[in-house]
């Protein structure tokens, strides 16, 4: 696989990937407007230049990622580089979204998902990982802690982490 990926013209340089990552939006799935505003504020305080797209329920996430109405236009509604997903959501829960995503027959199933929730419940943590979450973060109680979390999040997930391609089919 490495040999295929390393063929000239098929592999982006690390620099190009990082530029690409920084250009891709982060999909923040959060139903609580207050939590959303505080998370957005924490990203703003970092000078975060990634666009943050907010969706507030599970059905919207599935419609957005599938490119279903009203999200058909990929220029106006670009694919995210990763999802920050709350668990307790109206309609379809975060768990249902995760299950749907990981069950996709396309490369979409690789999209990194970071759960961001207020639940420290071990049942929720285990279920999230069982369903294929890439990380599990608990919403902090203070703005200072939230700013620290978003700062670490940016360093790891946006600057260091290599993103998968969402094209093609999953390989086993």
């Amino acid at each position, binding site marked *: 696989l490495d040999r295929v990926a390393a063929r000239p013209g098929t592999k982006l340089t690390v620099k190009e990937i990082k530029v690409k990552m920084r250009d891709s939006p982060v999909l923040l799935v959060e139903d609580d407007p207050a939590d959303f505003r505080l998370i957005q504020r924490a990203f703003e305080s970092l000078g975060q230049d990634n666009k943050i797209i907010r969706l507030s329920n599970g059905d919207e996430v599935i419609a957005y990622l599938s490119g279903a109405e009203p999200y058909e236009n990929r220029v106006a509604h670009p694919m995210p580089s990763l999802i920050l997903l709350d668990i307790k959501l109206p309609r379809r829960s975060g768990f249902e979204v995760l299950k749907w995503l990981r069950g996709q027959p396309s490369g979409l199933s690789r999209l990194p998902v970071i759960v961001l929730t*207020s639940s420290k419940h071990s049942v929720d943590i285990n279920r999230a990982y069982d369903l294929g979450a890439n990380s599990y973060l608990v919403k902090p109680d203070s703005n200072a802690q939230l700013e620290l979390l978003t700062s670490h999040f940016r360093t790891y997930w946006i600057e260091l982490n290599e993103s998968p391609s969402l094209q093609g089919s999953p390989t086993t």
Partner: protein
Amino acid sequence: MTDRRALLEEIEQHSRDLDQSNAELESFAYSVSHDLRAPLRAISGFADALQQECSEQLDNRGIEYLNEIANATQRMNALVQDLLEYGRVGRVGISLVSTSLLSAIDAAKEQLGDIRGSLTVDVRVGLCVYANPEVLTQVILNLLANAFNFCKADSLPEIHVTSQVENGVVRLSVRDNGIGIAAEHQERIWNVFERLHGRESYGGTGIGLAIVKRAMTRMNGSSGVVSQLGEGSTFWIELPHAPGQNSR
């Protein structure tokens, strides 16, 4: 035989009822932790944002009000956390293993953070008790926090932690030089939300010692206090002695 079978069935039914009741409590605690803390996070988050971004537009009174909001949300957060802990120690099946007392004290000290005053620990390395390590750490943390909290206004807290082994039982004592407790109040302090003083005089949620009592009962141990008003207090816990080990 029929009577015996009927009794067994009755016991099994009680056991099923208890499981269901525990599951309901678990779900209640889950809702409390998730739903109650979300608005709290918003209140403290936006009060903090106001302080950071809009303090120039506020006079001293406005800033004072914001501080009150921040203090109240901190208190509420501590209350929710303590109530959850109180529920947890009473509910969750606790496994008891040979646990190093010193390791639990060290873990509690670490969670206690910076302290004002002094803390000396005189406990033998390798001394072990039958306990749940996490719950024992919580118990010791609560006792230490309590000892530092109720200090005299004119002196720094001096806390001594000692241990004693007698007849297969280990007693851990936490002695302070604080305000002490009058004999008539020494039972009440172990109840949930029981406070002997106004919140402005001494901090704390009023749940810490209730957690200690409940946790000690769950670990087949006991707890108590020896104190005189104005003369400091010695809170103690007792647990079965366990064979030593290299690490917990």
